[in-house]
């Protein structure tokens, strides 16, 4: 292994890259997807490393290649690219090592981000926020906590990864892959799954208990009806029927029942 050269990029450069990465998908396109956003994000590095205009343009064009990953996990790739490009610049090398790394990392990191953030953290925090609003009914004070709790709980890991990812990617370079393995995103996903299940069960109990009496006077019957509706929705969703269709279907059935005089 080559001895690690001292790292000379300024804090400000890395921070600028991290902040720019929020615009990764500003010009998302079907040809090369996030390429323009990536080139925009990496520009501070290009300015810091290029000695002349010609070099800068060559550098920029190299980073216009196809790119697509999870918009949060891109930070890690940006950090690693910073380290690798800095090394290449010092050796006056123009190998396409950075692009190979980008291509290698983007798929797996997209899988990781989609699993942890979209399919687990977002439902978990949103469910919590929604639960607070439902419980507060129409009182503004505790209800306003709903969106706040949702935003704060979601943002801590999000911003931590998006800002911190650039810095640790730069510090650790490609070795960050080992760290990610130790960090084991799958366990986080499963833990959040358990949390969602518990909160879901609790909310289901509270909502059915409170709304059952609105529909029919007998509480047990009302709860039974609500649960039956829930299961119908659930199996319909599993069969791939979309939420919008289910909503319109429910409206039609309700109108039919109303004309039939059921309620």
């Amino acid at each position, binding site marked *: 292994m080559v001895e690690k050269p001292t790292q000379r990029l300024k804090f400000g450069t890395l921070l600028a890259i991290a902040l720019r990465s929020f615009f990764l998908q500003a010009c998302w396109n079907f040809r090369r997807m996030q390429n323009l956003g990536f*080139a925009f994000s990496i520009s501070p590095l290009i300015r810091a490393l290029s000695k002349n205009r010609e070099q800068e343009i060559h550098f920029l064009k190299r980073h216009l290649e196809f790119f697509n990953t999870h918009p949060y996990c891109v930070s890690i790739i940006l950090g690693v690219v910073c380290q690798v490009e800095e090394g290449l610049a010092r050796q006056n090398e123009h190998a396409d090592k950075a692009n190979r790394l980008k291509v290698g990392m983007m798929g797996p990191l997209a899988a990781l981000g989609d699993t942890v953030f979209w399919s687990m953290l977002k439902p978990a925090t949103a469910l919590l926020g929604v639960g607070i609003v439902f419980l507060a009914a129409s009182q503004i004070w505790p209800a306003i906590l709903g969106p706040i709790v949702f935003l704060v709980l979601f943002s801590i890991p999000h911003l931590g990864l998006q800002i911190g990812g650039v810095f640790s990617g730069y510090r650790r370079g490609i070795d960050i892959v080992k760290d990610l393995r130790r960090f084991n995103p799958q366990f986080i996903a499963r833990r959040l799954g358990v949390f969602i299940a518990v909160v879901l069960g609790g909310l289901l109990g509270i909502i059915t208990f409170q709304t059952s009496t609105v529909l029919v006077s007998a509480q047990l019957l009302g709860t039974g009806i609500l649960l039956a509706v829930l299961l119908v929705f659930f199996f319909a969703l599993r069969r791939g029927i979309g*939420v919008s269709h289910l909503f319109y279907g429910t409206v039609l059935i309700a109108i039919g029942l109303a004309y039939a005089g059921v309620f």
Partner: protein
Amino acid sequence: MEQVFWLSALGAILALDAAMVGQFMFSQPLVVGAVFGYLLGDISSGLMIGAMLQLLWLGVLPVGAYVPSDHTITGGITTGLAIMLMQKYGMAFGLSLVLALGIAIPAGVLSGKVDILVRHLNSRIDGWGERTAEKYGSLGIAGLNLAGLVAGFLRNFIIYFVWLGPLAVALGWLAPQVPEPVHRALGAVYWILPMLSLAVILEIVAKAKAYWIISGVFLLVWILLFVWSGQAWMIFGGVLVLGSVLMWWKRAW
């Protein structure tokens, strides 16, 4: 109309968060609902509408190059329409919500379709990438990104404006003509809506062990509420503690 203009502009900016800028979750119905509610002077309705819609489309993931319908826009439009219906025509909360949602869902679908067009347009912009880089350097690339943002903003703004402007007027004219049984039906759908939300979450965690946890906690909470009526807050707090503890217990996975 001026109010509609500013609401649409703000909604369009918040909606950029859905895919183009940051994904800070500002575009989520729970947040947009609160903001729109505040602007329209009815924050508690805004919060409730946001909560009703927040979970509905969480099962649709924006993975990779896949462009789903943009239902964050549905959330904003539903909140705006429902609060207008309540304030102008004195309609009941549940009824306004369901009616507004029914009108707003196509906006989300349309938004997804227009999004695909915008992304094709962006492909055009990307075609200029190399030349722009040669001529204007990184500043040029920033300009191309800005062009993409402007296209996205216009898409959101136009959809918001059409729905909150002309369509809201049409809805205001139509709503009082709705026959009484339909009123009752839509009001009932309001009470069913949370079940659809929870079914979506159930589908996300669908797994044998999860079913056991959900049923167990459900029964526990329901019985506790029955014997110890009216302590929903404390019970919800207990559920959160239980969830946080179980998370660390390996056998629960």
